[in-house]
């Protein structure tokens, strides 16, 4: 954990330059819930949504605004799966591993996606283009295995479709 935190610190440091704008946004988000400690998870979700991860400076800001200790924030941020303490790629690719997807070949789809993006589950490509994650269940069980790319859902994509979808995204950015 210490190592992970140190890593986050370094990564966050690298990004410090262009963070002013984002920090202002964090202040606004947290400001809406000033002092309301129960809103912590909702605030973190907003920050995660806007930045695709939780930068340390943002968490410090939240700690001040909501009057919650930083350790408590890390307690939450490491417990729930929606949060990431590492920067994520511009495009998020998620493969559902729910039971229905599982029995219809989700592990093979995951292999295919990992092969195409050349990253493993939980990783982000070096050029910060893609992050590959898995999810427990998206609730689209009848059309599995399901893949989600930047919020767009795809049911039973073939290997070729995976390549097409992701290469279109790579060009887009």
């Amino acid at each position, binding site marked *: 954990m210490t190592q992970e935190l140190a890593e986050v610190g370094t990564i966050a440091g690298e990004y410090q330059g262009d963070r002013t704008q984002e920090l202002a946004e964090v202040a606004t988000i947290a400001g809406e819930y000033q002092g309301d400690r129960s809103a912590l998870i909702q605030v973190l*979700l907003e920050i995660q949504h806007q930045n695709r991860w939780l930068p340390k400076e943002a968490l410090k800001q939240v700690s001040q605004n909501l009057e919650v200790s930083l350790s408590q924030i890390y307690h939450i941020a490491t*417990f729930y799966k929606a949060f990431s303490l590492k920067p994520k790629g511009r495009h998020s690719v998620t493969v559902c591993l729910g039971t229905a997807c599982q*029995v219809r070949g989700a592990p093979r789809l995951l292999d295919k996606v990992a092969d195409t993006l050349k990253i493993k589950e939980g990783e982000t490509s070096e050029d910060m283009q893609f992050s590959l994650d898995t999810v427990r269940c998206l*609730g*689209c*069980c*009848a059309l599995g295995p399901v893949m989600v790319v930047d919020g767009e859902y795809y049911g039973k994509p073939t290997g070729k479709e995976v390549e097409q979808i992701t290469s279109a995204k790579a060009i887009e950015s």
Partner: protein
Amino acid sequence: MARLNSAAHLEKLRQLILDKNDGKRVVSVTNGTDGRTRHSEVVVQAFVNEVKKQGLAGKIVVKSTGCHGFCEQEPTALILPEAICYVTVKPEDVPEIVSQTLAKGKVIERLLYEDPVSGQRITKESEIPFYKSQNQTVLGNNRFLDMKKIDDYIALGGYSALAKALFEMTPERVIEEVKSSGLRGRGGAGFPTGVKWGFCRSAPGQPKYVIVNCDEGDPGAYMDRSLTEGNPHSVLEGLLIGAYAIGAHEGYIYVRAEYPLAVENLKTAIEQAEKYGLLGENILGSGFNFNVHIHRGAGAFVCGEETALIASLEGRIGEPRQRPPFPATSGLWGKPTNINNVETWATVPLIINRGARWFKNLGTQGSKGTKIFSLVGNLNNTGLVEVAMGIPLGDIIFKIGGGIPGGKEFKAVQTGGPSGGVIPRSLLDTPVDYEKLTQLGSIMGSGGMIVMDEDTCLVDVARYFLNFLAGESCGRCVPCREGIYQMLKILNRICEGNGREGDIESLEEIGQTVRDFSLCALGKTAPNPVLSTIRYFRDEYEAHIKEKRCPALACKELISYYIEPDKCQACLICLRECPAQAITGGKKITHVIDQSKCTKCGTCLEVCPPRFGAVTKLSGVKVPEPVRQGAAVTQK
């Protein structure tokens, strides 16, 4: 939108809406999350544009609805009042549907559902075998409702149950009605809803809270998502009735992070209900006040457990705590709290409107009413199925689900998600109810029903669930945290071919400990997938351990891919497609898999033309020595 100040106002509004839409033809296009995997939004937009283009704007209503049930065939377009059902509709089909069916009522044959058995095209939705044996009451309204329009809900009689409760019933009477209906919690444990409400009502302390549990974490179950997306007002109305009965003025809806559309539709529904005065102060002029907030979850299966959910609502990590005290006496912020899941809340308005007797007449002795199941997995017709309790499992799978695709054999059905168990073929005539499923070592759970064919390895399934649970255990109590991990270790070992004598007995022993000593339901039910697969498929465990053989040919470490030399036609397809370059051979030279290079991805089996069928999987036997390098094929 004018505020409604009495039940009579509501009735008047209902009449106005009905008059406005009288005689119009409606097209309901499924546009829930499932539909969107096939880009249903584009189809809905195409309908809107086309109706305008063809000058039918005043005569046709286009509805963007939640799931109707038959998700496999989505997007579907249901044309009312005729109930003509078009399946897997594409944007390019839309102009014809508008000009032929919507304008003239003419049926387009090629877009109808084709019965795979008889080959016949079926016009009416209710005649499709998937719908024929169903009894859609809670889910049924999805098809008539635009997801984002409160007026559609009101037109169907929406909020009249609330008006009835507020103006014609005392809170005690509402609780009595729900008690007498026999409604039991649809989230998993099956506790009688009316009794739960009664506890909370009589508990000392103010304020009281009511909560909707839409943290549908059970993988393979999605009826709560579908109801919340497609009919959010039914959930709100149920919640309002419950709040009135219990004496609560504030409520929370806890929605999974993975359900963005459900959150969006709930937000819209709440805003609309507030504008009509169906939420907020002095609801319908009755003097009853109620406010509701949405709380998004952040991804933790354990938060479906009520005490963990409450902890999460309070902004803490989702760790369950010991009960008692139950939330009914000490819940959110230590106040009396009542939690029910989405389906339970959505059933309440129906009970109030149609009466406890109507509900009681459906179902079995101990399990009343209907239940929505998500029928998914290796099955021809997948989707959401609502049936009266007591229907035999086999009827759901074969009559509604249409059996197993690809000529494969049915092997087992898994019910209740990670807390449930598997049920083998021999028990398929079991009627579905809470008690019967528990007797079989499984549970009803929230209604997930995952059908598995002969290619599914049940040891691997047990491993899958334990892997899930090991990741989701909050880690607070030792039996769950350590027990699940140890069971998983043994299962991994077995699936990898390193199983030892005595492993099955260890699994049983640890399983019993975890079941008996865990703090919350996650741990108490965690061994079910293991114990039930051992109970019904012990021989599969033994084959893995003693013969290092996976009978279903599924466990990667125990199988080998092999090209049968006398079937191989040296077509080069597998050789080219193999991502590991493990296949040697050439034109007219038999292809051979180099076992040391093979990653067992299965591509060769998938791409080998079925007319050759040369690639097979082997397990528990030695891979035959390859034919002499460079051997010519025997052309057929």
